[in-house]
């Protein structure tokens, strides 16, 4: 029995995981990162477009601050997020980006003077201020009032991941590559680490830790086509679910990005539309202004994806052998802009489509992109069911995004929540002691070893790729952008049948060491459990909120559904999760539910909304001279680690 002990164990070496590990290490704790792959290959690298932080240095960002970023984030979430978390996040985002600047990210900078840009398909001149020259620049993104998305050309995630990865190397943090956590070690209500399989040798090792942090990203590949990297299969969330104790939050909240290329499903960044690109239909007609006259192509992602799907259903899609699609047109941005600021997009078009976006339209279609759901945590990032278990980034439902995430807020969340949760993880490590018997550890190791043995020895049974394909097709066809009760029920029944069949998987390559089929076979039942959580959550949520759209319940229903779904897998033999619900308390909100500004307001209001609004109005009236910080604290106080509480400076306004 091989056991490795550490203080802080981090599973996943993308931006969020690295940042937590860096925090632990800087606080003097022994820290280990486990990763399926080399850290710098993590899916964080795919964030092309940018990181939201309210620096307000760009001219079109003037007047931006935490309050505006907060309001955009809450509206974007369709009031499904935790507003206290949104405050913690928007307050810390400027600090995160400035820290990353010091660590080496070559953020694109403000260039003083006149610039020709494309806004609403027209060339306009914007003058950048002399006094802002050399500060961090920002671009426009969907669903935001200000230009707030900071970037390095279109390689933001890559630059951030390399800077963060290099910081971890500087701090001498070991990243153990090609290691997969296949179970969490837990006893009572406490997590003690993970059972980890070496993907090369097949060896199982117990990593025992005071604090264990899941930073494994989303669960995109329960869908057949996803913009996500192929390793994004939700395993961190799944092993948390399998403890029976740790709930997953809002698993039905799945985002579809408007512009993935057809058929490969590779993303073209929102920066294409942020920089002035438009969407066109089979006739070359720009249709978004008809649906969303105000924000047009830059409405929130869920809105644009729905409108595109509606338009295709009206027969306006471009037919192709891979199904109907629409066109993304960035030709109007010009060669120089595309070659400088959208080069990755150009490369993707050249390599995967054989076209040049300087002169050709790009075939695009809404495609699974982001998982708002994940391991449900408290505001400190700790699991709602297991002490000593933390989750961060896309793997977590910290609940910054509610039912729809804004573009630029995910890569931002990785760095910001990594900073914040990293401090709470370090606090936990300082306060807690490791208290576990080797008997418990041995029990988990033997259980996993026996399961793998069974799998490798079974001579006939189900075929892993056939079952996985069936699951992915069900999710695409029945749990996609538009959902309805009948299809969701069918999907649930079919997924449960697949889960039963997956108990009888047989391998063709029956070895325990490096074996891709074994890896997939170990993941499949876990992916099915996640798919079932998504589907059941979607079936029970009889409303439409953010990215979750029910054709049979088109209204947002605050009266009955202003709540977060919690999915528990209570017994190993269960075929579906037990769903519980956590109310979002309007009386504690800084921004009570309102109209997002898309289409027509059909929301069914909650009785507390008017009461809370009145209360807020009274508080505001009673403090006529209060500055925005004092007022904010009076409305909804929030906590942060001491080192992140101070105000943020901005050009022209100082700390106001």
């Amino acid at each position, binding site marked *: 029995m091989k056991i490795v002990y550490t203080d802080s164990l981090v599973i996943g070496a993308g931006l969020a995981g690295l940042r937590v590990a860096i925090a632990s290490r800087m606080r003097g704790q022994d820290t280990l990162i486990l990763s399926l*792959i*080399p*850290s*710098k*290959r993590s899916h964080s*690298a*795919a964030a092309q477009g940018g990181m939201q932080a309210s*620096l307000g240095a760009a001219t079109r960002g003037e007047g931006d601050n935490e309050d505006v970023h907060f309001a955009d984030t809450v509206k974007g979430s369709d009031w499904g997020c935790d507003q206290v978390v949104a405050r913690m996040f928007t307050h810390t985002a*400027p*600090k*995160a*980006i*400035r*820290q990353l*600047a*010091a*660590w*080496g990210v*070559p*953020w*694109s*900078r*403000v*260039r003083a003077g006149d610039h020709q840009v494309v806004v609403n398909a027209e060339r306009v001149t914007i003058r950048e201020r002399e006094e802002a*020259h*050399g*500060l961090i620049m920002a671009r426009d993104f969907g669903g935001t009032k200000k230009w707030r998305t900071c970037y*390095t*050309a279109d*390689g933001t995630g*890559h*630059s951030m991941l*390399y800077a963060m990865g*290099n910081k971890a*190397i500087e701090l001498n943090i070991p*990243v153990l*590559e090609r290691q997969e956590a296949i179970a969490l070690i837990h006893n009572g209500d406490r997590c003690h680490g993970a059972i980890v399989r070496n993907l090369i*040798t097949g060896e199982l090792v117990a990593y025992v830790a005071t604090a264990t942090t899941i930073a494994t990203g989303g669960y995109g590949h329960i869908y057949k086509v996803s913009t996500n*990297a192929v*390793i994004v299969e939700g395993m961190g969330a799944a092993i948390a679910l399998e403890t029976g104790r740790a709930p997953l939050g809002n698993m039905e909240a799945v985002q579809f990005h408007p512009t993935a290329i057809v*058929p*490969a499903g*590779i993303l073209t960044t929102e920066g294409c539309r942020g920089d002035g690109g438009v969407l066109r239909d089979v006739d070359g007609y720009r249709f978004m202004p008809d649906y969303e006259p105000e924000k047009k192509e830059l409405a929130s992602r869920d809105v644009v994806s729905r409108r595109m799907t509606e338009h295709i259903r009206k027969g306006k899609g471009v037919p192709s052998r891979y199904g109907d699609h629409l066109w993304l047109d960035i030709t109007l941005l010009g060669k120089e802009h595309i070659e*400088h600021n959208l080069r990755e997009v150009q*490369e*993707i078009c050249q*390599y*995967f489509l054989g076209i040049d976006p300087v002169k050709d339209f790009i075939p695009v279609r809404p495609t699974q992109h982001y998982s708002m759901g994940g391991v449900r945590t408290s505001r400190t990032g700790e699991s709602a069911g297991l002490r000593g278990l933390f989750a961060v980034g896309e793997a977590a439902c910290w609940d910054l995004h509610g039912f729809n995430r804004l573009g630029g807020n995910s890569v931002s969340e990785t760095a910001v929540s990594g900073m914040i949760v990293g401090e709470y993880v370090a606090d936990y490590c300082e306060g807690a002691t490791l208290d576990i018997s080797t008997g418990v550890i041995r029990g988990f190791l033997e259980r996993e070893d026996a399961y793998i043995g069974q799998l490798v020895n079974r001579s006939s049974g189900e075929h892993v*790729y056939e079952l996985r394909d069936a699951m992915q097709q069900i999710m695409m066809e029945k749990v996609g952008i538009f959902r309805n009760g009948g299809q969701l029920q069918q999907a649930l029944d079919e997924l449960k049948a697949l889960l039963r069949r997956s108990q009888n998987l047989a*391998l*063709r*390559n029956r*070895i325990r*060491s*490096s*074996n*891709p*089929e074994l890896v997939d076979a170990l993941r499949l039942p876990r992916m099915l459990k996640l798919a079932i959580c998504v589907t059941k959550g979607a079936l029970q949520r009889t409303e439409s909120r953010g990215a979750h759209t029910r054709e049979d319940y088109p209204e947002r229903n605050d009266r009955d559904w202003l709540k977060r779904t919690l999915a528990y897998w209570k017994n190993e033999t269960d075929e579906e999760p037990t769903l519980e619900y956590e109310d979002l308390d309007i009386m504690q909100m800084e921004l009570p539910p309102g109209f997002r500004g898309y289409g027509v307001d059909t929301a069914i209001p909650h009785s507390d909304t008017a009461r809370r609004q009145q209360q807020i109005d009274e508080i505001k009236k009673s403090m006529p001279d209060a500055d925005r910080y004092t007022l904010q604290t009076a409305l909804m106080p929030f906590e942060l680690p001491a080192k992140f509480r101070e105000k*943020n400076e901005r*050009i022209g306004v100082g700390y106001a």
Partner: protein
Amino acid sequence: MSETVQSQAGLGRGGGRHLQLHIFRYNPQLPGDQPRMQTYEVEEREGMTLFIALNEIREQQDPSLQFDFVCRAGICGSCGMVINGRPDLACHTLTAKFPDGEITLLPLPAFELIGDLSVDTGKFMRAVSERIEGWIHSADAEGVDINRLEARMDPDLAEQIYEIDRCIECGCCISACGTKRMRPDFLGAVGFIHVARFHLDTRDQRSDDDWYEILGDDDGIFGCMSLLGCEDNCPKNLPHQTQIAFLRRKMALVR
């Protein structure tokens, strides 16, 4: 030694070309396993990349076949392999590129073999970062006040840094390097481009003397024979030779 796995029934109905993929096979974890070439037949479809073809082989013909893909979009650098004699990223290689439909795939040389087409670039790249101390060296970095306006940077400089910060550590330059074959400890283009990136960055306070300690010998910048393998085979088209020439001249002026 070569063996052919017949395509499954059903393949061919789509009317596409029949591709022959000749793939290096060897699993060091399997006692007694011998290196060999194995041929698979795949029916080509429109827009097929090696990512699609290899996964189809694994799922339908041979589940033991090892290879690495992560982003499958040409940005993470996981899938470098030698494709018909040249190192490149498999994910962004369209099968239509090969007129005769014959594709030979070998693992990247110069890296530890994990199995079949999978090699350990992670360990190598981490060692490169440690050797060149590939992070910002600044006396005041830790003391930086993250509440205040960030230090300004010239917009042109930021763009120039990003230009050479685009390396994805895929390892193609190392596999294509003649010097690396002769000198096992040669730093290679991936190391040089990282050094050039930090050398250019005004936030990094290292002097040319400091860089000389890292680069100033035949395992460093003076070992390069200028065969241009790195530049010719870089999937990101990075300007390796310009950067190497610049660093060599800089270092030659130090002592």
